[in-house]
């Protein structure tokens, strides 16, 4: 079976969990010989590492005008890269701020459409203008995907999150093949409740047009049912996974004698950073041997720096800025506790990474991953007393931290992407 898969990022060019999840799914599916994946990803020129996208050996690169088709052949999946400036976690407002991306490429994209490749754009219309650049880009992406859809054989279209929905719908219309929508987050989760109406309508349209929907947790499934009015019958939950750790555990020099409690993630309203600071304040007031690290970047970062200063805990509260790859591993190796107080987390891969690193984990009940794992401490995101309590207990009672680290590690080692991909494959078979 050939799958046309549309995504927005692919490692190492990632800004969040979406790219990692896509990689996991694609690699997990490669374990099944009867599934071929054609992965289409917009080439994100804004990234420093874009030239390093040699994760997969490039066999042939066909470039036509401004559209670059990069076809990779590795075991049984291909990746096709399209030049694009999209970052999956940008809001339209952020996007339009990036002035160096002008509109000029839009035209040439469409030119490409007109030249060489067979085009049927006239049969296909997007309803109205989306306005800001981001939505323009989504349109362009959809047009290009349409061309790809015409030139490739596939039996199912599998798309990841709202940015790819219009393209998925276009591909469905032109090919008549079923559309599978994979939901890693909704705008309710990303925006902390302040939903962008345009994004909402794109999401809703995607859900409605989809023949089947995969949600990364029951939490997301419920959301799609209750807030988008979609029948739960066509939604299946498939949890994300994590691949077993390869490579050596590098020894990192600990910089502090105190215990280190780490928040690892984007500093945005979705991740609940202010609750982390409140917890830190409670603990620092009563315990001398604990330090807190907020590792990541985001629009609330400055606010959080201000808040930690206001509470007078700056001497024990540290910010690292954006971390990637190896830095994340080093940060985990330095940590004694990892905490994820997310207000609304569709899944949440960080706890699984921490469990792999044998670190006790505290997570909010408002996360999808809390449905899946047992050997962590779960609290409500707003319950700063409970989180402070858990930190105190893990720091104070050695047997507790030992058992959590060991049993958490055993638990997470049972997960792998092949299992999740197996569920996805079954959904393919049921959909086609």
């Amino acid at each position, binding site marked *: 079976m050939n799958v046309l898969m549309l995504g927005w990022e692919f490692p190492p060019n990632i800004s969040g969990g979406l790219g990692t999840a896509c990689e996991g799914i694609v690699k997990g599916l490669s374990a099944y010989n009867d599934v071929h994946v054609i992965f289409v990803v917009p080439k994100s020129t804004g990234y420093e590492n874009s030239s390093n996208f040699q994760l997969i050996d490039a066999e042939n690169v066909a470039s036509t005008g401004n559209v670059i088709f990069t076809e990779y052949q590795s075991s049984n999946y291909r990746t096709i890269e399209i030049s694009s400036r999209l970052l999956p976690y940008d809001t339209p407002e952020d996007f339009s701020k990036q002035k160096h991306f002008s509109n000029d490429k839009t035209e040439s994209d469409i030119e490409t459409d007109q030249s060489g490749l067979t085009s049927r754009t006239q049969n296909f219309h997007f309803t109205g203008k989306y306005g800001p650049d981001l939505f323009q880009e989504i349109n362009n992406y959809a047009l290009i995907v349409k061309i790809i859809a015409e030139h490739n054989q596939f039996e199912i279209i599998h798309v990841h999150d709202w940015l790819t929905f219009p393209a998925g719908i276009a591909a469905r219309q032109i090919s008549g093949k079923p559309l599978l929508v994979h939901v890693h987050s909704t705008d309710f989760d990303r925006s902390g409740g302040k939903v962008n109406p345009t994004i909402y309508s794109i999401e809703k349209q995607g859900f409605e047009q989809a023949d089947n929907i995969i949600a990364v947790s029951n939490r997301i499934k419920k959301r799609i049912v209750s807030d988008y009015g979609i029948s739960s019958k066509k939604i299946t939950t498939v949890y994300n996974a994590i691949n077993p750790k390869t490579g050596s555990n590098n020894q990192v020099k600990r910089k502090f004698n105190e215990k280190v409690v780490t928040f690892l993630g984007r500093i945005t309203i979705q991740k609940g950073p202010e609750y982390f600071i409140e917890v830190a304040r409670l603990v620092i007031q*009563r315990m001398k041997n604990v330090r807190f690290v907020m590792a990541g970047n985001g629009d609330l970062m400055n606010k959080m720096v201000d808040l930690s200063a206001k509470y007078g805990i700056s001497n024990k509260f540290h910010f690292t800025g954006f971390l990637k790859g190896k830095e994340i591993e080093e940060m985990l190796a330095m940590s004694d506790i990892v905490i994820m107080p997310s207000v609304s987390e569709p899944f949440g891969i960080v706890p699984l990474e921490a469990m792999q690193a044998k670190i006790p984990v505290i997570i909010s009940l408002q996360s999808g991953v809390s449905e899946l794992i047992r050997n*962590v*401490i779960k609290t409500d995101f707003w319950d700063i007393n*409970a989180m402070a309590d858990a930190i*105190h207990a893990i720091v104070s009672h050695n*047997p*507790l931290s*030992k058992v959590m680290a060991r049993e958490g590690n055993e638990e997470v080692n049972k997960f792998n992407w092949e299992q999740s991909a197996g569920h996805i494959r079954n959904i393919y078979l049921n959909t086609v």
Partner: protein
Amino acid sequence: MKNILLCFQVHHPFHFQTFRFLDIGTNKSYFDDLRIEREINEAATNYYLPVNDFLLKLIKKNKGKLKLAFYISGTAIDQFLMYEPEVLASFRQLADTGHVEFLGGTSSHSLISLTNRKDELVNQLADFQAKINYLFGKKPTVFVNSDLIYSDLIGKDVADSGYKAMITNGSRKTLIWRSSNYVYSNCIQPKMHVYFRNEMISDEFTNILNCQNSDVKDTSANNFISILRNLNQDEPLLNIYLDYKALGGFGIEKKEKFIQSFISHINRMANIDFKLPSEIAEIFGPVAEINANEPICWLNNFHSYYYPGNELQMEAIHQLYMIKEMIDSVDDINLQKDWQYLQTSDHVHLMDDQHPAYFSSNISNCIYKSKYDAFINFMNILDDFRMKILEEIEAKEKRKVGSQRIGKGKKETTPHHLSNKLHTDE
């Protein structure tokens, strides 16, 4: 001749409420008094009062042919005294028939027997014996450990406290190929007799009582009677030990009907009788010694060989009984009560992932989401308790010093004021 022991266990722990480390030193209560009171009220209305009434009539009707035994835990007794004294009165009425026996136990359904603190074990057993004697007019001679925990060493220690026999679970781990329907003796102290709960029959009995489908219930009740008929008559004992709660609650009329028919069937059969546990001890000698190196136990729908438990449980028990030395020098009644209620085994059971509470659909009944929460709450409470004890000991010391100074004629604050001041300073 076959003898049936019909025993019911009554137990209610003092449930904890959420106790954060931020609560340490704030004088917050450890126990969820509202929940405790609500549960005991409901249990009295739906279980104890109607069922005891039914049992009393049944015993009178059968004129000595029906005999029953009860184990009522120390914490359950205290909760009845506090909230539902009527329940104790109804048990006393049962005791007065002469056909009902009350079994011995630890003072608060505690895990003391799992530690090596024999002195405390002896104290707890003696306290409980006195309590049962006071309430029901007879000193118990057969012992039931919390959750039926038994091992060779525990059996010996209990014998040293003056008991002749004890009941434990017929766990396959200990019996292996042996039948539970004989009297055995402890392998260290042969004078101690051991009766094993017949797991299969007790569980089946409970299942029939709790069965909601009346057709299934009738067929399984008939099957059950035929099982009883075909029991090996050479085996002298049949120990049916179950949770009292199986008798009451939803569908109570049908349950009563089943009990009634069960008893009349037994009474119609030749060579089969109800006996009290203490009577068995006088009639039968043990057939063999039994070895139980590691403790066995009985926890409904949970474990049959559970102890010494996982790392968290062992640590919790270890930390709990570290306080033992300190508590001995404290006279404060409230602290002593807390000390008793902290030891109840239920708190430790919840530090296990497999505990039924974590699979129950009725989530509101459990304040914990995992064994880790249970451990953390327990340790916070222990921290607070330890602090209170230390304060009390310090205050006591100062009172002593103070009174000596007064004796020497120096005018100082009175001990009473001093201790009050200490508390407010903290």
